[in-house]
């Protein structure tokens, strides 16, 4: 998960957002803004149609206004992304000359068990974190929504983990899950359970990383669900109650369907950020620098794909191979997001 504390809006366009989606759920800001219904302001008289170049020239302030982003974007994002494609076909140590090697890097990638191990690690950590995180978030949101007391306090307290620095939290988790000391093993000991070597077992390492991510993002997702819940008009519930529906039925046949666009959003965001976990294992297992830097801990159990990418690029200086890794991984993320999307969308059509 990168350091982005708050995810952006849903990747749908402004006009096709959840607010006007098939569920017809009103967007919370629909009524805001006095000039919303006014016709769009057009400083250029639309009636006369000057030549295209003059139209462009006349709009120089607008082009100037949007240019910083596109300039920065082209130089620091678009060009680099394309250049990464180019690099994936080269062998380059970052200092000497580049050497064109065709698809060799991808062939290496296909045969590299460590790459596939890293993909497996990433997926396991993602599932271990996302599923409980979104489930608990939904429960918390429903609970907060069901009460009127202390809600402001709950929101703040639940939200705080998501703004806390990942490095700090990784260090904290490293300390409490430590094998040789650490709060968790101390508690186990006081319960007369034998200590668990959290940081040196293949599965517990993943569990610790997933717990960290769950801790950090559950509250954030709960707050988002809460906003969605509050946007559901109370009449809908009243009508259902009049028809004799119980709380469980209301939850499953009204709340969940109406929340679906928001659930889709949280699933997509958690997928994209969850699959990009890098800082957690990098900070937790950066310690073996002498023999084996950034190898993801014992048994490489914490080696996520992005950490493997970083290792190849900045430890081994194998930039061509690293470029192949990161591109292959991006395509994988894209695939998973699309599958997710289709799954949630299909369910939406069924009722």
């Amino acid at each position, binding site marked *: 998960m990168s350091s982005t504390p708050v995810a952006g809006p849903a990747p749908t366009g402004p006009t096709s957002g959840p607010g006007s989606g098939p569920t017809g759920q009103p967007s919370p800001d629909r009524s805001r803004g006095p000039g919303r219904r006014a016709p769009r302001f057009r400083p250029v008289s639309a009636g006369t149609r000057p030549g295209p170049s003059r139209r462009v020239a006349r709009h120089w302030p607008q082009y100037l206004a949007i240019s910083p982003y596109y300039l920065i974007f082209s130089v620091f994002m678009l060009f680099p992304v394309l250049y990464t494609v180019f690099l994936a076909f080269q*062998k380059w140590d*970052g*200092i*000497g000359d580049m050497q064109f090697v065709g698809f060799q890097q991808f062939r*290496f990638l296909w*045969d*590299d*068990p*460590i790459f596939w191990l890293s993909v497996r690690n990433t997926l396991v950590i993602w599932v271990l974190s996302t599923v409980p995180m979104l489930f608990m978030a939904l429960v918390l949101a429903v609970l907060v929504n069901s009460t009127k007391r202390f809600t402001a306090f709950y929101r703040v307290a639940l939200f705080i983990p998501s703004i806390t620095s990942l490095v700090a939290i990784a260090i904290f988790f*490293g300390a409490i899950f*430590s*094998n*040789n*000391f650490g709060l968790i093993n101390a508690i186990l000991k006081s319960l007369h359970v034998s200590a668990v*070597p959290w*940081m*040196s*077992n*293949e599965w517990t*390492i993943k569990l610790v990383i997933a717990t960290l991510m769950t801790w950090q993002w559950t509250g954030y997702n709960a707050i988002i669900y809460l906003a969605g819940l509050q946007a559901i008009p109370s009449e809908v519930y009243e009508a259902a109650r009049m028809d004799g529906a119980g709380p469980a039925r209301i939850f499953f046949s009204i709340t969940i369907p109406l929340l679906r666009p928001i659930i889709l959003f949280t699933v997509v965001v958690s997928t994209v950020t969850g699959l990009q976990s890098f800082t957690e294992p990098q900070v*937790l*297992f*950066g*310690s*073996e*620098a*002498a*023999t*084996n*830097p*950034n*190898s993801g*801990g*014992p*048994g*490489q*159990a914490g080696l996520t794909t992005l950490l493997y990418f970083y290792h190849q690029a*900045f*430890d*081994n*200086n*194998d930039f061509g*191979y690293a470029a192949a890794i990161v591109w292959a991984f991006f395509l994988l993320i894209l695939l998973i997001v699309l599958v997710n999307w289709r799954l949630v969308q299909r369910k939406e059509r069924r009722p």
Partner: protein
Amino acid sequence: MDLSRRRFLQAAVLTAAAAGATAACGGGSGSSGSKDSKDLALWYWSGGLSDKVVADAKTHFSDITLKTSVVGGDFKTKLLTGLRSAQAAPDITGIKGEDIASFLPNANRFIDLKTVGADKLVPDYLAWKLKQATTQDGKLIGFPIDIGPCATFYREDLFAQAGLPTDPAQVSAQLATWDDYFAAGVELHKAVPKTFLINNIGSVFGMIVGQGTRRFIDEDNKFIGDQDHIRTAWTTAVKPYTLGIDAKINDNTWNAAISGGTLGTEIGAAWHALDISNAAPGTKGKWRVASLPGGPSNLGGSFLAIPATSGNPDEAFKIISWILSPENQARGFTDAALFPTAPAAYKLPALTGGDAFFGGQKTIEIFGPAAEKIPSAYEAPADAAVSAPFYSELTSIEAKGKDPDEAWKDAVSQAKQIAERQGVK
């Protein structure tokens, strides 16, 4: 939740000013063509040099402003990235022993120290160590800070509890082979159940590889990591795991383990003494040093180098040769457990005296002979990258109980693939 326009404007102007200032600074400090800068930056890592000697160097070279930075984290990565840019690169830098080989192909990024005065000093330093920093066409890119003759550090009190020999000479004699050493470990663990013999099996593996004269790649740039010398090292390294005397520490808790008595011995280089005394000040006087089972080995031992972008190579080498003079190396040994690379230092009182942390033991009696008999092995630039899977697979055995034979096969096949990627035959 409001941001007034005036504030916004003020902030914007401030930012512009700050950005301008940064730009000006960035441009100003860039190394210009002249090579007589009086501001020199020195990078090393915590424990890489004696902080006292470095502090004295600052006063000794009063006409030079020596700015020192202790770099944390992965030093090689930082240095490699830093070397790419003249503004960022230091004027003098440390290079770790295990990394020096990987810098040799890019020797043009460094000053050939023989051109700035090292040629006269070469005879006074260990020849095999200088060879590690010499390219095939004879350029010397690093001047040796220390060497890492290895030994067994052991807890005398715990050995006594287990009925094992406690006197360094006796321990050296009785724990002469790896099997003897492991057998002692079993007894130790039986007598003191919370105490293990070794930190992790990767450390044993590295030590045994270092005892040989061949590593993972030979002089003809051919991969030899699948041959018997590595296989034997592997099989031996796995033994303590099977015997249950491996503490399996692969995370940041070594510190706690060493001070809490989880580790009864540590195998490591001379400089490792500093790690132990820093981590476990409470165990002062309880540790002793004995010879390494299976013969001498070298681990690490670093260099000082001058990047090609250095602002003043001549002055930089003067500083290096001062810091690494036999007298200052002797001080480095007392202060930071850096074992000297100039044999003249071995006769100085700082080395021949006793060490209070080791109960007054004269550790030179162990390290001195070890240093003389260190086997010299060819270390290829890709050696570290190719050896990485062996260490990773050893942790797999520890972390998930992977079958050692299977782990060996996987390590070899991964190493071969990395070798191919790195252009090794």
